[in-house]
C-alpha cells in the first residue's frame, strides 16, 4: 500500500498541488485522474521521488519515503517499476537489453536466468520474437508493452504508469489497460495509473482519485463515479454526447 499525506508542491508562484492525501491499495489499479494541467503527473513524480514535494510525506508500506536518506530511497526505488508516457526505452539498447537492464543493474542473476525472465515478461505482455529489434523499429503500442515488461521484470511491489494510453488508438489502449490490470492482480502489486482517458477510468478504475486545479475533489471507484455529485468531476466525465446520455439515463 502507498499512502500520501498532505502533499503540496509549487513552481514559483504557481501552486500545482495543494494538500493532497490518499491511499493506494495493494492488488488494485489505483487511478489518478483529472484534466490536463491539474497536477496528476507532478503528484506521480512526487510519489516516486523524481520531484521533492514542498510539504507532506509519502509512505511505502509504512516506510516514509520523503524523509528517507539516499540509501533508503534507493532501496525502495528498487521495488518500483514505472511505465513512462513515451515508453522511455533506452535508444541504444534493443528490446531484450532494455527489458534485461534492471536485472543487470539490480541483481546478480546468472545470464541464462535473466534471458528466461526477460522472455517470460515479453511473453506476458504479448511480445515474442522482437528481442533483437531496436526501439526505433517497433510501434508505439509495442514500446508501451516493452515498457511494461521492463517495469515488471524485477518483480516490483509497486507499479506506476504515467498516461499509458497517450498516443495509442482506442483498441490498443484497451489492451494496455487490461494488461496493467491483469498484472496488478496476478502479481498482487500496488499500481498507480495517471490518466485522463475515460475508457481507462471505466475499464480499470478500481480506485480513483480525482484532482482539480491541484486539489483532491473526490475519491471512489468506477462504479460510483457516474453519481459522484461533484460538479467538476461530472464536467470531466460527461464531456461527450454519449456520456451525457448515460447521465440522463
Amino acid at each position: 500500500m502507498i499512502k500520501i499525506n498532505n502533499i503540496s508542491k509549487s513552481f514559483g508562484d504557481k501552486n500545482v498541488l495543494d494538500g493532497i492525501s490518499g491511499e493506494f491499495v495493494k492488488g488494485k489499479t489505483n487511478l489518478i485522474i483529472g484534466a490536463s494541467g491539474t497536477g496528476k503527473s507532478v503528484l506521480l513524480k512526487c510519489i516516486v521521488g523524481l520531484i521533492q514535494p514542498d510539504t507532506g510525506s509519502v509512505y511505502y508500506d509504512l516506510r516514509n519515503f520523503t524523509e528517507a536518506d539516499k540509501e533508503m530511497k534507493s532501496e525502495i526505488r528498487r521495488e518500483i517499476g514505472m511505465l513512462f508516457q513515451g515508453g522511455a526505452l533506452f535508444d541504444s539498447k534493443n528490446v531484450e537489453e532494455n527489458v534485461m537492464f534492471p536485472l543487470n543493474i539490480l541483481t546478480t542473476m546468472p545470464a541464462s536466468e535473466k534471458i528466461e525472465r526477460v522472455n517470460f515478461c515479453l511473453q506476458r505482455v504479448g511480445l515474442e520474437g522482437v528481442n533483437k529489434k531496436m526501439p526505433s523499429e517497433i510501434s508505439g503500442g509495442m514500446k508501451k508493452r516493452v515498457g511494461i515488461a521492463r517495469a515488471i521484470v524485477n518483480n516490483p511491489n509497486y507499479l506506476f504508469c504515467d498516461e499509458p494510453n497517450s498516443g495509442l488508438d482506442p483498441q490498443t489502449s484497451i489492451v494496455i489497460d487490461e494488461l496493467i490490470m491483469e498484472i496488478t492482480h496476478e502479481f498482487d502489486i500496488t499500481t498507480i495509473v495517471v490518466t485522463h482517458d475515460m475508457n481507462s477510468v471505466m475499464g480499470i478504475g478500481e480506485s480513483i482519485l480525482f484532482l482539480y486545479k491541484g486539489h483532491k475533489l473526490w475519491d471512489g471507484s468506477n462504479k460510483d463515479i457516474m453519481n459522484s455529485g461533484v460538479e467538476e468531476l461530472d464536467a470531466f466525465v460527461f464531456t461527450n454526447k454519449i456520456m451525457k446520455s448515460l447521465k440522463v439515463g
Partner: protein
Amino acid sequence: MKGFGKYMIFLGSLFVRRETFMTYYKLTLEECINIGVKSILLFVLVSTFMGGVTTLQTGANLVSPFVPRFIISNVVREMTILELAPTIMAIIYAGKVGSSMSGGLGTMRITEQIDALEVMGINAASYLVLPKIIASLMMYPLLVIVSGICALLGGYLVGTLTELLTPTEYIYGIRYAFNEFFISFALIKSFVFAFLIASISSFKGYYTQGGALEVGIASTQAVTASIIAILLADYFLAYLLL
C-alpha cells in the same frame, strides 16, 4: 556563480551511490570507442593538413637567407606540440564529442530515459556521465599524441614534396633544441581539456529541459562553454607551467 555552483554539485554527485566496477568498466569501454576510435579519422585528417599548411606558411614567412631552412620544421614542431595538437584539436573535440555528449544526454532527459534510471534507484548522473569523463581522460591524450605525429608527418610530406626543405633539414629542425617538458606540458593540457569538455558538455546536456529545440540549444551552449573553458585553462596553464 549559481551555474558554477550547480556544476560543482553535479561533479560531486558523480561519486555517490555508484554502481559496480564491472558496470563502469563496460560503459567506459563503449565510450572509449564512441569518443576515441570514432574520432581518429577526423583527428588524422585535420592534423595532417594543419601540419602541412603550417609548414607552407612558416616557409613563406621565413624568406631571409640568414635564417636556416631547418627553422621551418623547428617552428612547426613547437607550434604543433604547444598549441595545435592539444588546444586547437580540443576545440574540434568539443565540437564533435562535446556536442554529441550534450545532445545524447539532453535527448535522454526529454524522453524521460534519465527519469527511468532514477526511478530504478540508479544514480543517473554517475551511471551516464562518469564513464564519459573517464573515457575522455583516457582517449583525448592519445588523440593528441596521434594528432601531433600526424601534423609533423603532414609537415614533412608538404615540406619535402614542395621542395621547401630537404628531408634531412626537416628532421634536423624537428630534433633541434628539443625541450622534453613541452611533451609533458601538452599532455597535462590534454588531460585538463578532456575533463573540461566531457564534464561541461555532460552538465549542459544532463540539465536540459523542454524539447528538441532545447536539446539543440544545450549542444550549442556545451560547445561554447567548453571552448571558453579551454581558452581560459590554456592561458592559466601556460602562465603557471612555462
